[in-house]
């Protein structure tokens, strides 16, 4: 019984390490605004540019809204180094919005605000974190999905407390593997609680891109189990 505990604890620690090594943005940090409070932003003419590495669009340029490439490179470096997912700066009639989904792009807003907001999914438990000093002190969070450079995935979370199993029985094939396609009713795993085997359904469609827990690992309510690419 101590082994089970030890195994569970080790598995949890292993899962923790990726998130400890690479900072994962908390909900409050995802909307990083460089350049201070909103009051400091100026509004003016805007320029529309192309994606990083993509095609440049030929737009009439206003001299006063030219953004030097060096600054753009610095911004990129800052963005990547801090593992940000969203970044916006506005000054001198120029607004630059960086969003990471799936790869960083530079998008300068149009006056008509036709720029679609950068949409990405965050794992459900991120919304529920309180993000106070206490959580930083206690590192024993269970497995969290790998950080921001990952594609946005729909995360299947555990609806109950129990033990996670990949297969219907010890000798059977796993319900799903990486790359398996699932539909809403597809059973993806079993979570055993109090000797009852609960079949967990995907409740979404897509391809299994990530498996966050190991066979036999204890899981808590809300723990990420699978990442599904839609």
């Amino acid at each position, binding site marked *: *019984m101590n082994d089970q505990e030890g195994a569970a604890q080790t598995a949890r620690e292993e899962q923790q390490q990726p998130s400890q090594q690479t900072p994962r943005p908390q909900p409050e940090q995802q909307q990083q605004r460089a350049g201070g409070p909103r009051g400091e932003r100026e509004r003016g003419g805007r320029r529309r540019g192309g994606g990083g590495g993509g095609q440049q669009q030929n737009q009439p340029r206003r001299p006063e809204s030219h953004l030097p490439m060096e600054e753009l490179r610095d911004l990129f470096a800052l963005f990547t180094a801090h593992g940000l997912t969203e970044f916006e700066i506005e000054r001198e009639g120029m607004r630059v919005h960086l969003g990471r989904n799936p790869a960083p792009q530079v998008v300068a807003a149009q006056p008509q605000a036709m720029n679609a907001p950068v949409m990405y999914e965050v794992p459900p438990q991120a919304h*529920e974190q309180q993000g*106070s000093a206490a959580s930083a002190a206690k590192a024993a969070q*269970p497995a969290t999905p790998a950080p921001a450079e990952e594609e946005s995935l729909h995360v299947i979370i555990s609806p109950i407390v129990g033990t996670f199993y990949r297969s219907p029985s010890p000798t059977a094939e796993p319900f799903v593997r990486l790359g398996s396609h699932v539909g809403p009713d597809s059973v993806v795993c079993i979570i055993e609680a109090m000797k009852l085997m609960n079949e967990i359904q995907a409740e979404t469609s897509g391809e299994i891109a990530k498996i966050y827990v190991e066979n036999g690992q204890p899981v808590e309510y809300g*723990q990420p189990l699978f990442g599904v690419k839609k």
Partner: protein
Amino acid sequence: MTRPLRKILIANRGEIACRIIWTCKEMGIKTVAVHSTADRDSLHVLFADEHICIGPPPSAQSYLNIPAIISAAEIYNVDAIHPGYGFLAESAYFAEICEACNIKFIGPRSNVIQMMGDKVQARRAMQEAGVPILPGSENPLETEEEALKLAREIGFPVIVKAAAGGGGRGMRIVRSEEELGPALETASNEAAAAFKNGDVYIERYIERPRHIEIQVLADEHGECVHLGERECTIQRRHQKLLEEAPSPVLSPALRERMGAAAVAACKKIGYSSAGTFEFLLDEDESFYFMEMNTRIQVEHPVTEMVTLADIVRNQIRIAEGTPLAYTQDDVVIRGHSIECRINAEDPETFTPSPGTITAFNLPGGPGVRVDTAAYPGYKVPPYYDSMIAKVIVHAGTRELAIARMKRALEAMVVEGIKTTIPLHLKIMDDPNFRAGEFSTKFMEDFLKKNGTKKPVEIAASSR
């Protein structure tokens, strides 16, 4: 035959979960905290050895979620579960499941919880044990005629009460025969809505009672002691605001009589672990059994201060099968202790004030204890009860304890939310409180005197 407990799961949250963790740490016992998603950054989660999320914020899906809690207990291979107070602490069903799963429930056996949880059964058991009960109906009332006959025997005023509940719901005071019929009906409907059981009974109503409770400790070998009384008369809408030990009005002789009654009752019903007998004390020193709480209580610290007992430690030792550490002669009450429950509420309107605590300074110094799970930056969740801290003082006399409570409350800084600290400071200055002269009507009178916007209403049949 003792079975040492090496790991305990605490099926609770907030300050009591922390309280249990403190004693477990002192005893070298490992702790497992369970929490809802709203409590991920709670102090009890932070300080427990292990923790696990068991559900979303609503209590029904988390702290009352028996499968989730038992599953967590099995995953972490715990020896015992401490239920704290509230939540599942008095669920005979939960205790039974723990027993079936071979997890020690830190409390009495499930059948004892069951019996004392049913008001009518409890009254009957107390009668058989020789504990005075308020004159009243033996069984739930069947007809209005039966009720009327009984009311005439008991003598008005009487009170109609729900058999299955408490906390003021399903209760109506009846001062004359004409009021009886309508009161029975409304009380029964209220009880059916609140507790799914419309059974009501009636008993004598005492106009100016005091609420005195006796703390007991019983081991699993038939031994039992009492740790003296707590004075819990100061209540608003049947919710205690502050408590003290000992009571300013109990003589040693009365204390002995009440304590002996409680101990005799424990032995008769086969009680074990910590428990509390609640009595109504009339002005002529007659006392009557109200109900028994088969768990540790919110206000247990005042008893701990005056007796130097650690009630949680005793519960754990009892659960391990250890015989009681004290005889009745070992129990000595020294000095005076007062506890104020600090709630995240407006001190005048009592509307809840959830939010983030931006500044938090706790009082210290001689004879001050604060039981809390709050901290600077803590976000008081709206899903659970509003108590954020208990401030407890201990001093040589009641006068000194009141002075100590005043200065402790003045040093307690809580910003970002409203708290009832100002209310408690006013109570400490109230002449009736200071004189020790009050009944359960105290808060009603106090709030009228202090000109609050909403006067307190106690349910009466004339409505």
